[in-house]
């Protein structure tokens, strides 16, 4: 599996086949999730209708972390084993993860205003997610800061691995520090603490966000690999013209 996809051409074939399926899954899951989340689920007895923001906020926050893990792992694989496709995957993940992080912060802010009475509070969870957003931006900036793309991907891969220390801080910040942000309520040892009527739209939206990520990832990776081939072909042409 690992070596199999080291060949970009093979990967391209798979990505081209997968893209429409992922697109379809995203649309179906998002439609079902939005229907359940906006129409067919009850308001929370404490938070009222604002609980519906959760159906986009939690998946976005979850994807922000998931994308960073994906980014760091593919960057590490690309750096250590010089896996060419993993490098491309890391580079293609960064903007998607940055978008999810931005959305998690934005929707969290829109949730916090009616709940806490403030757009933003400087607690551990919010601050560490903000740092995650800066890490994504730093990764992208460093990646594109070199004339030699090889160096850019290597330098930014090291940065991605350094930034990995932030992930457990985000995950556990609500348990370690007493903060305004509510603790995890889905993934717990003693089972989820939220009502199944709310769990379903949440799961559907998480599924939709995940397939969306994979779909856009495939599109972006296909673009990068196509551009690599373009560059190679241009070089051949230039050499032929020179000869």
């Amino acid at each position, binding site marked *: 599996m690992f070596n199999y996809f080291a060949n970009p051409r093979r990967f391209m074939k798979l990505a081209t086949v997968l893209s429409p399926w992922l697109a379809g899954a995203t649309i179906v899951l998002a439609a079902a999730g939005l229907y359940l989340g906006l129409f067919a689920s009850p308001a929370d007895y404490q938070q009222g*209708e604002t609980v519906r923001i959760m159906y986009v906020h939690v998946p976005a926050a979850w994807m922000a972390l998931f994308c960073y893990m994906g980014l760091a792992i593919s960057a590490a694989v690309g750096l250590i084993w010089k896996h060419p496709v993993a490098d491309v995957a890391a580079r293609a993940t960064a903007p998607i993860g940055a978008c999810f992080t931005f959305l998690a912060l934005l929707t969290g802010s829109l949730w916090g205003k009616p709940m806490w009475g403030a757009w933003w509070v400087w607690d551990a969870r919010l601050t560490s997610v903000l740092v995650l957003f800066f890490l994504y931006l730093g990764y992208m900036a460093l990646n594109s800061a070199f004339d030699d793309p090889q160096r850019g991907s290597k330098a930014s891969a090291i940065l991605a691995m350094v930034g990995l220390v932030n992930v457990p801080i985000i995950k556990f910040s609500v348990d370690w520090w007493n903060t305004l942000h509510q603790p995890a309520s889905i993934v717990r040892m003693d089972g989820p603490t939220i009502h199944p009527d709310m769990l379903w739209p949440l799961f559907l939206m998480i599924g939709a966000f995940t397939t969306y990520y994979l779909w856009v990832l495939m599109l972006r990776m296909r673009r990068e690999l196509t551009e690599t081939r373009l560059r190679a072909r241009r070089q051949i042409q230039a050499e032929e013209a020179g000869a």
Partner: protein
Amino acid sequence: MTKISEFLDMGGYAGFIWPSYGAVIAVLAVLLWLSLRGLKAAERELAQLEGDAPRARRARPTDDGAARP
């Protein structure tokens, strides 16, 4: 009608709920559009270039399939 306006009002929290859904859909749609556009541009250019060079294999037909909304 009241049902619809009641729904749109979201128990008085319309100003927070709709913008968050709107922002999510807008940002994700723009990202998707940019990614698709970049891919199409790259594929078009490659097809053109490979068409120019007769020795090169022809580019595979590109799928746009479900990619378009």
